[in-house]
């Protein structure tokens, strides 16, 4: 304690006789307010936390002028009051053994509730991510996650009701209402899936994966959105395939044959597979479907001179399409004439039961009947030359050339590797010169230079459109017209061919030396624009559209600039930071951890940011910009995407942020997230008050005896948090009797570094804290209960819930390190603070940033934040708890200095240095 620090200026400090065990000091302030001269008097009982390392976590203030502006929104106080009032619910007295049993039962429900909460929050994060990450997902994902989520929330309500001896049953109403709405959202899709049996290629795009399968959806995208030439044709959809199978009641028989199939017995596998395929191939097509297919075929037949031939291409739906190894497994039939179209269609549908496909699905747990075989029926191109085009070398996503394989005739021969072919490397940059050609083809039949250039243009265009290197099948017909037959993401497997091209890997010879290098890629891509350094909120308003955002720290609040920025360079930060997430969502290239960025990059000078490589160049570097591939979200706007968006509106918004609000009650729950929040909050309150409610001394709070700490830390044992030799009658406990690993880890972090002493505080900073205090009614001892002034640990061996008032802010740390990963998590909530709003925000940002660096998923809402990590192993989580322990103690001073960004930065550096030291120190347990 360093009372002298205050005495010098406008405060006088003196010692007072300690009440009981507490040492205390009394401070009197004279403070001039801008508006009026008011004299406040406060007493601090040891408690001036900002200035005392081991001071209690509560501040007791006495003021003369406390009641003027009741601060209605103090959550934390009500949180404690809630706990307190539940003390007075009377309960029948039970015998000790009955009490023990009742308690164990409550604890069991509590633990189950926490696990359900953990699962629910993870599912919500996963759904939000699916929406923003631009990866493809189908209705099965939406339906499955909504179901899993509602099941977990049902469990939470169920366990809370039991925990609270039958109260909170009214939660059932909002829960039913929300799940009903969700069901309606999901059901709205089911009607759509019974869509057309046949779709013309003119109507297909990437959003129709659910109807036409991925291969045809991409081809439709190439045709209708990119505007490249593809063969005319139509898709026989998933709906049609389902009708076909159902009309013949084939699924039962197929499942019967698959029963008991031993996958390791290859002979049996092939026999069963062949049997099922012939079963499907020999079943009659429903007449209406056959007619529809032939009618569409008729429409393609526009040339009376020649017989129309089509290609039938499989486009499977319902499997994990990102698995490249599965590509090409299904059949394609070429040169099919009219009378064989129905039969060829059936055979491709039957190809679903090829033996590799059976094995693949079974190992992955897919049901065969959930996979649908869509079939594209496309006019054959009279190809003179065909081949495969990679928009990049398969082993080098940065290669400056496309790779073309070409062979006379049909593309399939190249894919099969059956024809003598040639391979070309063609520059991606106009005019696309051929860099290298290795030809096994006859003279005069190989690809011309203009053809090679056209293919390179197409490769670059499709890669840009799909946002990733592409593997493209193509043909050039007799008229010299280029047709795209297929475009799919290029897998980065190292094939023979890739190794070959690796010898000619692009060099960076043609690039200038970078201004800066060594940063971490937080969001891929390349961007170019003038530098604009943002240091404060004032700079936010002046940020010009099209500039490169250069910052010291990736505060979440800078995210509002990302729709105007072309790239981000930050001196510090990790890819897990919120700003990085948002940058990826917007597709804005971002480099974090770029040292000396602020010192090196001059405002308004033009730079090129190569985020993928973590480098910054002066000026405009065209070769790099040519590499830039903005990643559009192709799911956006599709029916499934819309449904997920609608579903999430009932799931993720959090309205119940404030346990003190009059709306923090069952009928205030509008979303599933609200329900999780409410259940968790009330469950903790129930466990907290059990000992008192039941007069159960064993489970009542014990005061933690810590040397040299006048702070009051209280511990409630939930199960096995105390050593067996601890005397349950005792009112005090010391650390040696605490078995709780998470509590010990937090404690270790709290004590790991001595607090460096009071920061030099400007009068403005200190004054603003005091001014807040006067308006804060829970600082009035008349309002505060004795209980509210303490810090509580609720513990078991594997669990810890610590609620803390540190100075004027409220923090909650909760962790479970169970037997199973499903149960593991660390969560942290932090709110409030005495300084003015600006300082509070700066502090929250600092904490968010630090936690982001340690892989927490951080959400910040005004001056409240939550941070979570789920389903990680115990040693990893214990480390995070130690970090939280450290932050609890060491950030409480930060308010005071936050107005000065230079100092904030130096504190931040010290904190990070301390934390890294802490993580290198072996944990004592």
């Amino acid at each position, binding site marked *: 304690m360093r009372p002298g620090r205050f005495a010098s200026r406008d405060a006088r400090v003196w010692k007072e006789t300690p009440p009981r065990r507490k040492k205390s000091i009394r401070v009197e302030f004279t403070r001039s307010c801008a508006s009026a001269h008011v004299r406040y008097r406060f007493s601090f009982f040891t408690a001036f936390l900002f200035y005392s390392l081991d001071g209690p976590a509560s501040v007791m203030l006495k003021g003369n002028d406390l009641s003027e502006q009741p601060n209605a929104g103090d959550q934390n106080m009500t949180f404690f009051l809630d706990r307190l009032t539940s003390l007075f619910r009377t309960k029948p007295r039970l015998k000790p053994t009955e009490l023990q049993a009742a308690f164990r039962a409550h604890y069991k429900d509590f633990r189950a509730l926490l696990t359900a909460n953990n699962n629910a929050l993870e599912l919500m994060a996963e759904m939000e991510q699916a929406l923003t990450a631009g990866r493809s997902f189908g209705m099965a994902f939406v339906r499955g996650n909504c179901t*899993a989520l509602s099941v977990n929330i*049902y469990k939470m309500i169920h366990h809370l009701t*039991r925990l609270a001896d039958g109260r909170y049953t009214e939660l059932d109403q909002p829960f039913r209402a929300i799940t009903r709405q969700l069901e309606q959202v999901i059901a709205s899709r089911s009607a759509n899936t019974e869509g057309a049996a046949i779709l013309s290629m003119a109507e297909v795009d990437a959003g129709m994966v659910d109807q036409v399968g991925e291969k045809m959806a991409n081809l439709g995208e190439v045709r209708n959105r990119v505007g490249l030439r593809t063969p005319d044709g139509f898709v026989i959809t998933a709906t049609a395939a389902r009708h076909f199978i159902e009309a013949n009641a084939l699924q039962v028989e197929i499942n019967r044959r698959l029963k008991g199939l031993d996958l390791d017995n290859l002979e049996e596998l092939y026999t069963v597979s062949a049997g099922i395929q012939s079963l499907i191939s020999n079943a009659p097509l429903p007449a209406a479907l056959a007619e529809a297919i032939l009618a569409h075929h008729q429409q393609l037949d526009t040339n009376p001179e020649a017989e129309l031939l089509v290609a039938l291409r499989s486009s499977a739906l319902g499997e994990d399409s990102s698995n490249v190894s599965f590509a090409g497994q299904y059949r394609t039939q070429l040169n099919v004439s009219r009378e064989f179209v129905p039969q060829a269609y059936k055979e491709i549908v039957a190809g679903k039961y090829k033996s590799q496909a059976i094995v693949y699905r*079974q190992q992955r747990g897919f049901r065969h009947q*959930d996979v649908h075989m869509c079939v594209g029926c496309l006019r054959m191109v009279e190809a003179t030359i065909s081949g495969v085009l990679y928009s990049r070398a398969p082993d080098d996503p940065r290669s400056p050339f496309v790779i073309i394989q070409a062979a006379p005739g049909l593309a399939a021969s190249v894919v099969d590797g059956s024809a003598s072919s040639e391979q070309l490397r063609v520059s991606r940059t106009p005019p696309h010169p051929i860099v290298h050609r290795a030809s096994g083809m006859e003279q005069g039949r190989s690809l011309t230079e203009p053809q090679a250039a056209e293919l390179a243009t197409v490769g670059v265009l499709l890669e840009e459109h799909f946002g990733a290197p592409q593997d493209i099948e193509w043909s050039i017909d007799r008229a010299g017209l280029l047709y795209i037959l297929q475009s799919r993401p290029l897998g980065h497997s190292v094939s023979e061919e890739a190794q070959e091209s690796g010898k000619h890997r692009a060099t960076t010879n043609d690039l200038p030396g970078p201004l800066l290098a060594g940063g971490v890629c937080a969001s891929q891509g390349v961007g170019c624009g003038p530098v604009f350094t943002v240091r404060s909120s004032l700079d936010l308003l002046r940020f010009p559209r099209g500039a490169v955002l250069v910052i010291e720290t990736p505060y979440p609040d800078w995210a509002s600039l990302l729709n105007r920025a072309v790239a981000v360079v930050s001196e510090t930060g990790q890819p897990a930071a919120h700003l990085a997430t948002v940058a990826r969502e917007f597709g804005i290239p971002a480099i974090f951890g770029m040292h000396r960025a602020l010192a090196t990059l001059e405002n308004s000078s033009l730079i090129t940011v190569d985020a993928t490589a973590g480098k910054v160049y002066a000026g405009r570097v065209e070769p790099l910009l040519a590499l830039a591939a903005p990643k559009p979200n192709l799911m956006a706007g599709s029916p499934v995407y819309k449904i997920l968006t609608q579903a999430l509106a009932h799931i993720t918004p959090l309205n119940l942020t404030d346990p003190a609000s009059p709306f923090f009650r069952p009928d205030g729950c509008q979303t599933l997230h609200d329900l999780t929040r409410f259940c968790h909050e009330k469950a903790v309150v129930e466990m907290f008050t059990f000992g008192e409610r039941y007069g159960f001394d064993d489970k009542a709070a014990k005061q933690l005896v810590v040397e040299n700490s006048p702070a009051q830390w209280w511990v409630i044992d939930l199960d096995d948090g105390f050593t067996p030799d601890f005397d349950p009658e005792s009112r005090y406990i010391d650390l040696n009797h605490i078995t709780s690993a998470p509590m010990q880890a937090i404690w270790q972090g709290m004590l790991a570094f001595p607090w460096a002493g009071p920061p030099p505080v400007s009068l403005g900073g200190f004054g603003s804290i005091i001014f807040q205090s006067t308006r804060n009614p829970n600082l009035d001892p008349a309002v505060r209960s004795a209980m509210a002034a303490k810090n509580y640990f609720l513990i078991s061996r594997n669990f810890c819930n610590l609620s803390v008032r540190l100075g004027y802010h409220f923090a909650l740390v909760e962790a479970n390190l169970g037997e*199973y990963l499903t149960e593991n998590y660390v969560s942290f909530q932090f709110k409030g603070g005495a300084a003015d709003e600006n300082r509070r925000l700066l502090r929250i940002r600092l904490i968010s940033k630090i936690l982001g660096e340690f892989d927490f998923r951080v959400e910040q809402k005004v001056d409240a934040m939550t941070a979570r990590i789920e389903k990680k192993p115990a040693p990893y989580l214990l480390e995070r708890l130690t970090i939280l322990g450290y932050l609890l103690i060491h950030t409480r001073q930060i308010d005071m200095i936050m107005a000065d960004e230079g100092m904030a930065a130096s504190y931040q550096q010290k904190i990070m240095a301390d934390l890294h030291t802490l993580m290198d120190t072996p944990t004592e347990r």
Partner: protein
Amino acid sequence: MTQPLNILLIDDEIDFVETTGKRLARRGYSAKTALTCAEGMAIIATGWPEVVVLDVMLPDRDGMDCLREIKEKWPTLPVILLTGHASMETGLHGLESGASDYCLKPIDLETLVEKIAIAHRESRAPRS
């Protein structure tokens, strides 16, 4: 971490139950499989299973009926529902009828094993 639990898989997708049964056995669990509810009930009646994993769709009867009967006769036996068809309605009915959990296929074995172990542990502890 793994206890040598006795697990009964009731599911008519024989390929799935057999593969899963083998993989559970490799992890030190004892697994038996039943393709119908009736077959499953007969095994439960011997007192052998400690956890039941039940498919919602069975050939001989509705899996939910099967669940209700199991919970009626053996209320403390934990039953995990596993299905290929996600349905919020079925999921919630399942829990109301006493299922310990409701999971969707495909499920990786790691997750299933944890769910089995947790369901078993919860069934041991007292109820409030």
